[in-house]
């Protein structure tokens, strides 16, 4: 039973990261109908920005690094939106995928030239401390990562339901033409959406970098495909659904690692995807019609 609880806790922590990256995909896909494959690379840029901030100004601590990570990711996200995603809006979804993938290749290899192709050690931003919660033992960093991700998820939920821009976001997701006819500035909302998604990715990236103690130019590959799968499993109708699926897939992965074998864990998300899409072609929680 202790092993079970421990694995569930570990799963929640990794799953919360999946959920944040998946939300970045979901926001871009729902609002702009663009599959933003550059998003995991924006995550990577945020991670390195946090690393530089933490190394240059250690007195700022974790919060300063997170701030810098969000800022850098937001700027990169904004630039990508202006140059590539905006012209691709309204195109066939696959060309958006290929276009943003080109950007992803550039970012990955650009960072590999700057930082080297191997993982780089992260500055120590949080103390190494164990925390006991009942039968479960977690590190301080794990808890912080979980807290940061849950805060981000809560923020998105609040944003899309309670703010004016957020409601406009959902209106555009439902019917872009009608939303525009009601006076919503579609272009502005799209830009804001991408920037918000990017900044969220940046924040999560710094906390993940601190958690594992390293940053890597190809880290986007680890999270990108799985987060993308989470979005497909959930469907894009409810952002909360994406969060639940992200956490769920994290938990299942951790359980598979604990009870069966760690090499099978990467397949979990994909088996779940095939199963869910076969029986519920619109995702677990439904999708907007295309």
């Amino acid at each position, binding site marked *: 039973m202790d092993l079970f609880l421990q694995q569930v806790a570990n799963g929640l922590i990794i799953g919360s990261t999946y959920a944040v990256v998946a939300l970045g995909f979901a926001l871009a896909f729902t609002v702009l109908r663009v599959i933003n494959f550059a998003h995991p690379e924006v995550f990577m840029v945020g991670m390195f920005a946090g690393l530089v901030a933490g190394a240059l100004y250690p007195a700022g601590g974790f919060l300063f690094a997170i701030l810098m990570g969000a800022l850098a990711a937001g700027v990169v996200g904004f630039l990508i939106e202006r140059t590539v995603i905006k*012209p691709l809006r309204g195109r066939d*979804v696959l060309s958006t995928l290929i*276009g943003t993938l080109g950007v992803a290749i550039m970012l990955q290899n650009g960072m590999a030239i700057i930082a080297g192709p191997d993982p780089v050690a992260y500055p120590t931003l949080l103390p190494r401390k164990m925390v006991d919660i009942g039968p479960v033992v977690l590190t301080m960093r794990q808890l912080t990562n979980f807290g940061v991700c849950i805060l981000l998820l809560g923020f998105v939920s609040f944003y899309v339901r309670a703010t004016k821009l957020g409601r406009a976001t959902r209106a555009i997701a439902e019917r872009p033409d009608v939303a525009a006819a009601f006076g919503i500035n579609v272009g502005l909302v799209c830009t804001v959406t991408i920037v918000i998604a990017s900044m969220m990715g940046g924040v999560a990236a710094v906390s993940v970098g601190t958690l594992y103690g390293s940053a890597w130019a190809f880290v986007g590959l680890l999270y990108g495909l799985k987060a993308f799968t989470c979005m*497909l499993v959930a469907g894009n109708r409810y952002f909360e659904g994406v969060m639940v699926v992200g956490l769920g897939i994290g938990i299942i992965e951790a359980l598979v690692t604990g009870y069966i074998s760690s090499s099978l864990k990467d397949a979990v998300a*994909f088996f779940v*995807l095939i199963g869910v*899409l*076969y029986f519920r*072609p619109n995702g677990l929680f439904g999708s907007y019609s*295309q």
Partner: protein
Amino acid sequence: MYSFLEPIFIFTLLSIMQVLGLYITAMSGQLSMATAAIAGVGAYLSAILTVKMGWGFPPAILMAGLAGAVVGVVLAFITLRMRDFILKLTTIAFGEALAVLAFNWDYIGGANSFTGIAPQTTIVTCLVGTLVALYVTWRFDGSRLGFAARAIRDDPIAATAMGVSLGQLRCVTFALGATIIGIAGAIQAHYVLVVSPHDLGFFVSLNFIIFLLFGGIQTMWGPVLGAILLTALPEALRFAKEYRLIVYGLIIVLVILKRPQGLMTRTPTGRAKKLFGFIISPERPPQAPAHVKHEFNTEAGAQPKS
């Protein structure tokens, strides 16, 4: 010089074969994102047959093609009910699941890859394979089945109403495309001499989709051009050293932004295309004016010229 060019030449030919298989698959509107996985099934099977069972190379290739067809039909059945774009992406999961299966199966080497394959592939093998693939694609493109497949791609409901069987056609296109891909995988396995589970992954498949969209999906020559250019490009960019992948990404982005329909498009007049006096695309009946025709193209088809 020759030894430097040979691998590039062989890999270009193999890319052409696989992208043609993908082109046939994509013709009926379902873009398979499991190209590498199907090629991997062919590669693993042929490797098992030649190394563990002692078969000859040619029958192993044929069996690989057959295995590819079987996988293709299974994939077609799984995705048959799925129509929206998102659901085409189930094929991603299919490929990844196969990759993980290969990863955990010790009989075929597991994570250590399948090694010990004898080198059998020569340039001639690749050339013959590519020519056969080109011929098959060319014939299929101009056949009744090819037209029916394109009708389904452009408007499934209208095509079904005209008596085209959607399920049957998707099975045919998936099976035919996957056969070519499986054969290409087998040939590749006997050139690279190693089959690793990573070769089945999504990012390898994505290369072929980039070839397809880069070259243009409207004719069979677009994907061929895309495969040739993009396989040779990273080699041609070698002088740029570590920056070549950045340039590669930049070129892909620019082409997608500036020429969304791909490099090569169909002539809108319905005339047969000629190259040095040879007809390279079959004669087709006069078509409706561009603006009428394009109303039905939901995706993957021609973009109206403004």
